[in-house]
């Protein structure tokens, strides 16, 4: 880890490189996000719900594209050998990938979540849905961290897609489960966001899991002795 910290300029350079590679796709996704937020802003139940489904899909697509394009395809397209010929260690590379992917996902994720919250507070949509929106968004972020970790540790398209499918299935179950929870269900129609111990507990658990998955990934990557 010390070596990695000593090589910060190279790690930053690799992150910038990934940003350059993804910026056009990202711009297109953000444009899609703006359209979807606009739909949700129409504040009719049909448009809001359709927009919410599309937003979930968009968040999943951004994450999947970034993990596959920047990690799995780097090995599949054999650009990994090119990267490893540069003055970096496997740990530097993994940290750069982690950093690049997080930046490339967290920035649009945050903007999309904030956009949705802005729509909710500034339109007749009841603010009571805010905890649900936040919790589902955090679950999607956690799912992303899981398949990013799989991609980084295995560089396998098969394993990564399997984890993507599993987390997407779990997302459906999670939404179904959380909507039926009295602590969430009873406050959905409330005029203000109602954070209670259940929703805060879930938010805390989600955040801890996100951090845990990322730390575990960095730790396991550091133990690797062979690269390529």
């Amino acid at each position, binding site marked *: 880890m010390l*070596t990695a910290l*000593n*090589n910060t300029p*190279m790690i930053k*350079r690799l992150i910038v*490189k990934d940003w350059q*590679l993804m910026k056009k796709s990202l711009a297109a996704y953000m444009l899609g996000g703006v359209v979807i937020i606009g739909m949700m802003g129409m504040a009719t139940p049909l448009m809001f719900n359709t927009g919410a489904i599309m937003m979930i899909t968009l968040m999943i697509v951004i994450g999947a594209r970034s993990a596959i394009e920047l990690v799995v395809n780097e090995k599949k*397209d*054999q*650009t990994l*050998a*090119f990267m*490893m*010929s*540069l*003055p*970096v*260690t*496997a740990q*530097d590379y993994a940290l750069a990938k982690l950093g690049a992917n997080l930046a490339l996902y967290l920035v649009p994720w945050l903007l999309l979540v904030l956009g949705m919250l802005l729509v909710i507070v500034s339109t007749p949509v009841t603010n009571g849905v805010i905890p649900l929106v936040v919790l589902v968004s955090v679950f999607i972020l956690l799912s992303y961290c899981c398949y990013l970790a799989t991609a980084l540790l295995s560089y396998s398209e098969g394993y990564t897609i399997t984890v993507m499918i599993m987390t997407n299935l779990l997302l459906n179950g999670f939404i179904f489960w959380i909507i039926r929870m009295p602590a969430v269900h009873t406050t959905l129609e409330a005029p203000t966001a109602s954070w209670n111990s259940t929703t805060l507990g879930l938010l805390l658990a989600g955040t801890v899991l996100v951090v845990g998955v990322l730390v575990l990934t960095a730790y396991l990557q550091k133990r690797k*002795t*062979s*690269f*390529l």
Partner: protein
Amino acid sequence: MQHYAFDMRNISIRYPHFAMENLNLSLAKGQVLGLVGVNGAGKSTTIRILMGLVKADAGQVDVLGYQLPAQQVQAKYDIGFASDDMRLYKNQTLQWHMDFIHSIFPNFDHGYAKGLLQRFELIADQKIKGLSHGQRVKACLLLVLARRPKLLVLDEPTTGLDPVARDEVITELADILRDDERSVLFSSHNTHDIEKLSDQIAFLDKGKLLALQDKESFVQSWARFRCQLLPQAQDSVPGAVSIRRSGQLAEVITDQSSNDFAVALQQAGFKVIEQHRMSLEEIFVANVKRNR
């Protein structure tokens, strides 16, 4: 004063279906070493250990005065590496790659890169996905060479090229290597490529270093004798690597070609009919067969 470009000592590594035991390999500065071996001989493993990409189970690796893999970051600033399985970003142009490399290596020589662009007949603004395999190999070499590394490591760069592209790459490479005082490690299973570029040649098979000599010594010390078997012909001849009998004739291969060996043949009941120099490929095959 560091005399070696790299020095690998007692390197051992074990995979489920491959083992390398106590490999010792070094390269003097300014020399070109050709590493020859069949697929699976351990060439790429050796190079990956040398680049710090794989950690050996045992042994020491010193590259340009740096201990690897611990000091690989510092070492890699002076090592240029290209391999047959190396690809560039297909949606980006060669110019993008040149700018990217320049942002990492301040010594990137744009003038030299421009010269190489013309020499390799490449277009800087062309996207990588529009290049042929031969052009992609040349693009990789350009990016590596323009950094002017002290040690150049080329892992089968000509694999998969058609004969014309291979000849172009090897010819250009030979010219470029003559121009500079770089240390080069060049691996290939194609002995013709190795012969054209290398000062020293190492044969590797199943993770073992079979031989390491300068090119001239190989060619001078190995020879094939076609002999007639005399009635008193013995089963073996001192210095013979192999004896293949066919009726009254025998083909004898030696790695100690000299007048003394011809005399030894005569004394062992082998009448020499003719003597041939061996190509590097024949020497390599004979070496591998002897050690298997």
